[in-house]
């Protein structure tokens, strides 16, 4: 962990943050901290028996989910996966709604019809994905297609994991997006494991970014624990898509620091990987960058953490108190009227 310098030395922005808008940087930090706080709270809720089924978290994915989402406009489309709580929160999803989804509550975005991580909201331009990713990738090409069809300059950012890249819909979506020059940004969150399957059994490519060349689109590999690197790479891809120049592929390398879900002790993971990545906590790393650049001071950082903790606690209280759904209307809405 980097040593925090004293406040006297933090007057001028360090080159690491350049001339970026300090408010944007503080906002990214705030949402990364909030994401971690909500997920830490939910891990405790899982252990305490508050949740149905298992809990899928995105520890060490915060720089990707928030860093990438922060490069979008609110009217851009988002097709996230289960490690992307940060992107949902950035868009305006409430933590209590996410908790309610994991509890099957009436107040979850699907009213308890779906659960766990299936909590997208179209009013926030977020697609609510099915379980088997990257089924969200072809859907993301459709949202981008609609934007282009209407002459709008909206783009669609879709996430998947390293494991997803093996599926046909990954290939078909990238093929369609490239030949149709769709405003898509595809983000592969390489967290080293597809459930228990290590990277070497998933892909023999030198990287996932390298696959972009075969589709005729730019591919870039970034440090997925570095929020600024993620934000910059996404912003560049978004600008390209918005300008009508077509899709891009970004690979963000990080580590899945919890099991596939909380029921999974993940004892198949190499100890060395955990040790290596324990030193690369994206939330801490970004906080240190901002502290060193003088964008944030210790008191403010502490306040952000405490606010996030309290927010997560209040969210749990609300979600717990929320009602369960009424089964009386379960057959309604199979079809739209």
């Amino acid at each position, binding site marked *: 962990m980097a040593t925090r310098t004293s406040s006297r030395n933090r007057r001028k922005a360090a080159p690491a943050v350049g001339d970026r808008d300090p408010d944007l940087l503080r906002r990214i930090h705030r949402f990364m901290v909030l994401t971690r706080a909500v997920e830490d709270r939910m891990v405790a809720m899982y252990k305490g028996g508050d949740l149905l089924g298992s809990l899928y978290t995105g520890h060490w994915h915060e720089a990707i989910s928030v860093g990438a989402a922060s490069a979008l406009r609110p009217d851009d*489309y988002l*097709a996230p996966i289960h490690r992307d709580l940060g992107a949902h929160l950035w868009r305006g999803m409430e933590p209590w709604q996410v908790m309610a989804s994991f509890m099957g509550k009436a107040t979850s*975005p*699907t009213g308890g*019809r*779906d659960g766990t991580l*299936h909590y*997208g909201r*179209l009013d926030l331009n977020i*697609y*609510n994905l*099915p*379980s*088997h990713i990257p*089924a969200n*990738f*072809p*859907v*993301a*090409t*459709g*949202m*981008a*297609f*609609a*934007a282009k*069809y209407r002459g709008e300059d909206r783009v*669609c950012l879709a996430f998947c994991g390293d494991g997803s890249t093996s599926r*046909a*819909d990954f290939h*078909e*979506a990238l*093929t*369609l997006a490239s*030949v*149709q020059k769709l405003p898509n940004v595809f983000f592969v969150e390489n967290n080293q494991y597809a459930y228990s399957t290590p990277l070497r059994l998933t892909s023999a490519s030198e990287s996932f970014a390298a696959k972009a060349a075969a589709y005729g689109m730019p591919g870039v590999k970034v440090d997925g624990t570095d929020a600024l690197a993620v934000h910059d790479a996404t912003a560049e891809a978004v600008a390209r898509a918005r300008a009508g120049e077509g899709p891009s592929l970004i690979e963000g390398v990080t580590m899945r620091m919890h099991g596939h879900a909380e029921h999974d002790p993940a004892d198949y993971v190499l100890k060395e990987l955990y040790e290596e990545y324990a030193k690369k906590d994206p939330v801490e790393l970004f906080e240190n960058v901002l502290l060193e650049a003088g964008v944030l001071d210790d008191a403010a950082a502490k306040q952000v953490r405490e606010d996030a903790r309290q927010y997560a606690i209040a969210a749990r209280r609300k979600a717990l108190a929320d009602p369960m759904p009424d089964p009386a209307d379960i057959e309604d*809405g*199979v*079809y*739209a*009227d």
Partner: protein
Amino acid sequence: MPTDTGNATYLDAVGLALDSEMDRDPDVFIIGEDVGQFGGAFKVTKGFLDKFGPRRVVDTPIAETGFTGLAAGAALVGLRPVVEFQFADFISCAFDPIVNVLARHHWRTGDPMPVTMRAPFGGRLRAGPTHSQSVESYFAHVPGLKIVMPGTPQDAAGLLISSIRDDNPTLYLENKYLYRRLKADGPISLDPIPLGVAKVVRQGRDITLVTYSAGVHQGLEIAEELDKDGISVEVVDVRTLVPLDVETIVKSVRKTSRAVVLHEAAKRLGYGAEIAATIQEECFWHLDQPVVRIAAKNTPTPTSPPLEDAVIPQPAEIAETLRKVARA
């Protein structure tokens, strides 16, 4: 472009309806393999590219999963895609997005999913086991999909228009054997025909034949033949499998007290099983005989004519079954 000459084929009728909906609603577009320059494998979209341009007539790579998912995404945010599968046999490649994305999205979220999937299906063209399939039962089991199977040029037009205007994912199955064999006897009306309304295409007293798609024509021909023997057959064309117009079927069977179900899909768990079970539940005390199903053998569809004819229901078998049930 298709023009209505007063004797439009079934295929022309599909094209006429699609053309009129694309004229009417700028959010409607057609996407699929070879639908543009080539005009589609069966030429339903011949001339569409010139008229509507590549923005609305979208040629795709061979990527059924991809373009079906694309249609889902486009529909979610307000467009009304019409997906063409080159053959219904290839729809299995898109099983995942159809079942897991299209069919259940509205129920999960309340979001709209107005996607129409057109697919030429069925046998008798000597096209073999992976170009002749009847796929309706795979999908009829999935809540959230509508299934439309027109049997006449007029129904092909009116039901396609309703499918495109419907806010649900709709599987619209075109009988490719009928494409150029059936002609309308007059101009095609481009008024929508509501989904979920069966049609009694022939009134009869003694027995009800419940069927759809090509079965309607087989049924009508055989009904004329049996009429000479004094057997009066009522023919019900269900037209849409989901939603199913149970009321019309029940009304007919309560009148005739005998029912036979006919389709060219394989018998085991074919849609006839659903119809037969429904009749049994709703009309048991009105029935004089058990409900009998006529369907294809439980084999893949073979290529060679004598083999295919042995698998798909033939007129002699249909006539004999109807006679037997009517006179028992």
